[in-house]
């Protein structure tokens, strides 16, 4: 599905915002002002932007953990100050600062992050089943990496979604590495989408550094699922051009990919650089407009940081925490 100019512009703005916010997150964690950890997005954010930009607000979305969903969220229109505040352990965090990095936005149909790789598949089946059960045309999208895909839960979720023709989109961000383990060391094939295809699902491979290719893939997958044709699998080949995470304990310095290679990737395969060239070339944006977009994004980030920073640290008492374990019998949803 070819993108309109407007769609390209939207993607471009969202990628600029996402990458700016990712840098903001990095600044904050490096300054020791985040309570948990953060997994840098870097040049890996094109898929998340594509997904977030084209889903409807009422479509369920489980982002890939990398960059903690920032690309998906900012593109879907989620409130970012409360997301940052959550990471900073503040009372105005979306989970009252009580979750570390476990943000959640039920109203935006993004029900939260968790640490366990392999969780997203069952959840996506649940979301898409619920849509079918209620008779709506909502779709559910879940994104995950090649490391996560090694968990048998991937196969279980794909099997169910395919068997029951659920409106689920499985979006695989395949960079061939999981933390410090190369995919080729522990997994037999390069294209993970082969598994989905074997399970009877339409699949597509896309360049995850190409923002507009990702956008087209997202549109196609969403359209397929929305029309009731069942699940769809997209495999985005993307790059991680930095360490696994910040705030982790990797002290060995024994990285499986060289610093030079990663620098080269940042130079040559940065999705924003590539998109900038293309949009200038196609005459969709001028250099001036681009600078404005960048400037706006930076202002946005500053405002977000400022807002989050004003919120007090979340320090609920043990008694308060003990009283908050169970939902009361009658609950006002998303109160």
């Amino acid at each position, binding site marked *: 599905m070819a993108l309109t100019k407007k769609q390209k512009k939207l993607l471009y703005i969202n990628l600029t915002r996402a990458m700016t916010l990712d840098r903001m997150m990095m600044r904050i964690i490096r300054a020791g002002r985040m309570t948990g950890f953060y997994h840098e997005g870097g040049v890996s954010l094109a898929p998340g932007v594509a997904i977030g930009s084209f889903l409807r607000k009422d479509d*369920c979305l489980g982002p890939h953990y990398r960059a903690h969903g920032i690309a998906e969220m900012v593109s879907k229109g989620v409130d970012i100050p409360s997301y940052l505040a959550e990471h900073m352990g503040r009372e105005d*965090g*979306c*989970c*009252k600062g*009580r*979750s570390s990095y*476990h943000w*959640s936005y*039920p109203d935006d*149909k993004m*029900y*939260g992050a*968790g640490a*366990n790789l*392999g*969780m997203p*598949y*069952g*959840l*996506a*089946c*649940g*979301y898409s*089943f*619920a*849509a079918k*059960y*209620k008779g709506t045309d909502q779709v*559910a999208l879940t994104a995950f990496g090649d490391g996560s895909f090694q968990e*048998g*839960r991937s196969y*279980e*979720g794909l*099997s*169910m979604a395919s*068997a029951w023709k659920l409106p689920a989109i499985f979006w695989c961000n395949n960079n061939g590495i999981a933390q410090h383990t190369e995919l080729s060391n522990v997994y037999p094939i390069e294209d993970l989408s082969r598994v989905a295809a074997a399970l009877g699902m339409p699949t597509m491979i896309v360049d995850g550094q190409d923002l507009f290719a990702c956008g087209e893939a997202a549109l196609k997958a969403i359209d397929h699922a929305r029309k009731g044709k069942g699940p769809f699998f997209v495999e985005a080949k993307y790059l991680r051009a930095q360490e696994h995470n910040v705030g982790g304990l990797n002290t060995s310095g024994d990285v499986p990919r060289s610093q030079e290679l990663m620098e080269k990737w940042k130079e040559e395969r940065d999705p924003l650089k590539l998109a900038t060239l293309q949009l200038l070339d196609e005459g969709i944006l001028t250099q001036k407009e681009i600078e404005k977009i960048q400037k706006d994004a930076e202002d946005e980030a500053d405002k977000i940081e400022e807002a989050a920073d004003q919120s007090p640290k979340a320090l609920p008492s043990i008694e308060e*925490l003990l009283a*908050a*374990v*169970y*939902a*009361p*019998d*009658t*609950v006002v*949803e*998303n*109160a």
Partner: protein
Amino acid sequence: MSEVRELTFSEAINEAYIEEMQCDENVFLFGECIRAGTFPHTAGLLKKFGEKRVLDSPIAEANMAGFALGAAQEGLRPVVDFMYAGFSYYAATEIFLNTASYYHVHGSQHPVPIVYVGTCGVGRRVGYEHATPVYGTAIHHPGLKVCMPSTPYDAKGLMKAAIRDNNPVFFLWHTTMVAQKGPVPEEEYIVPLGLADVKREGTDVTILTLGLQVHNALAVAETLQDEISVEVVDARSVEPFDLETLLKSVEKTTRLVIVDEDIERAGFAAEISALMMEQGYDLLDAPVKRVCHPNFPSPGGYMDAYTMPTPERIEDAVREVCR
């Protein structure tokens, strides 16, 4: 007044399903072989509610639990049947960590109503995988509610409470009691989670127990009636646990035996004993005693007759604390 009719555990649960499914469209059943029915509690439900609301799951427990969490987040109220409760260990992360924690960790804002169902218990001689009663492990993971009925009456009432509850609830029932009968009134009722039930009053010693073992405890109480007056407290709900009722009972009897079919070490009985230590020390005239599955994996075979708490072992314990 007409006599109260008798139903089996399976029939009682079946009725709870029907009533709750009729009054809430979002309730649906999803489980391993529930359509044709490995156990009879789901008999007839496919016909009554159709394929949309009665689904055989794939044989993939981890996905079952992840699916249920997603469906619940989206407003449905899944009842997830693992056939044997021990099969849910494939979903330990999903159930004990992620679903149990979901509400609390995410700021106590968005409830996830789910019922997990599974049979368990020693007695069918098939060993630990089918016998493991799960509740000892479950209560070590805050955020789950857990219950286990000893009668068809409680089974129906607890199941209705579980389905209406806004939290994940693990509903356990005993494999050897599936076809056991008991009175169940026609009128609607609920047995709230978190309320213990004094199944027999007594003055000398309290037995706290649940599930099948309530009947062993009652048998012992009967045997001993001319010698020792035994009060039998049925916990019914393991979490939330009704400590108040237990303390009230022990205040009267000053002695406590906990009968728990689960593995002894770091289980439900250990927790109650520790709670008595902390909150009931001055009430006690003798140390609390546990009668549990001994600390080895349930082997099955002919050993089933004596590895679970037997009336003999319970009686010994009662006599010991009354010495």
